[in-house]
């Protein structure tokens, strides 16, 4: 994976495949502490203790199509390369929370990549079935995208309507630019 936005898309797709209807993505850049924290929380089917213990093993997967599962091990590797770590909390039937920490200015810390494209892809392809809350903070400055609020405002117009997607894309780009 070239950047964090692709890791985030991958983990969010895992959440969707685990039956999640709500995914919260939080990126927190604490420049003073030099820590970047990524948190992804879903309300999917969750994992039992035994599965959590195996989930960072690339040769463990719950899928049947092929017997490897690289998504979480690759994110863990990305965190490790930037002197960070990963923490996975999950409860069967309740959901999963993944927290990855990175040294913010570490030379091997992956760039953010195109977060707008990741969010728009999730909304465009799965937005009718799931809600996405995306929050990106740099110190005290935060941008928040909440598809629940947007859907309420849109009323009968689907959130994946092309005109809506085009508007959301511009607004996310603008919002992220303002906090950077």
């Amino acid at each position, binding site marked *: *994976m070239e950047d964090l936005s*692709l890791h985030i*898309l*991958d983990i969010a*797709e895992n959440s*969707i*495949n685990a039956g999640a209807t709500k995914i919260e993505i939080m990126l927190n850049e604490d420049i003073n502490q030099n820590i970047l924290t990524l948190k992804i929380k879903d309300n999917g089917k969750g994992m039992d203790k035994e599965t959590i213990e195996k989930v960072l093993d690339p040769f463990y997967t719950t*899928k049947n*199509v*092929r017997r490897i*599962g*690289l*998504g979480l091990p*690759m994110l863990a590797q990305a965190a490790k390369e930037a002197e960070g770590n990963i923490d996975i909390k999950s409860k069967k039937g309740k959901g999963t929370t993944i927290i990855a920490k990175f040294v913010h200015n570490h030379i091997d810390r992956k760039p953010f990549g195109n977060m707008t*494209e*990741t969010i*728009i*892809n999730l909304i*465009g*392809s*799965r937005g009718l079935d799931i809600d996405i809350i995306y929050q990106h903070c740099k110190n005290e*400055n*935060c*941008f*928040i*995208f*909440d598809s629940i*609020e*947007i859907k309420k*405002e*849109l*009323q*009968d*117009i689907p959130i*994946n*309507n*092309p*005109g*809506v*997607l*085009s*508007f*959301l894309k511009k*607004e*996310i780009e603008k*919002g992220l630019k*303002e*906090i950077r």
Partner: protein
Amino acid sequence: MKKLKIGDLEKIRDKARRTSSLRQNKARARVTVHMGTCGIAAGARKILTALLEEVGKKNLDDVIVTTSGCAGLCSREPMATVEIEDKPPVKYVDLTKEKIKKILNEHIIKGNIVKEYALAIGSERTTLK
């Protein structure tokens, strides 16, 4: 905290309502972009972006764009499956933005399978909700 300007959505909502009055049609086609780890690492996000943009530009309101996990053939990613009502599904492999646009124009709009990009044609018939 900077929030997305919800108020501006009213204009978009009204505009969408005016332009999508005929949007009650049943879906005619579904395109599934395979977004497993392998697909994403191979460039599936670009394929999905190109597809969403093109479907929007052409106002194809009877085409569903969705995603799924790994299809089991990681070396041929990015992959997409095209399903057209009452026709067998077709799996396309080694996709690029240009290829998916051609597939949209030729297969989804005109109904001609793009054989040079296709891996396999299924035997079952597709029924779209």
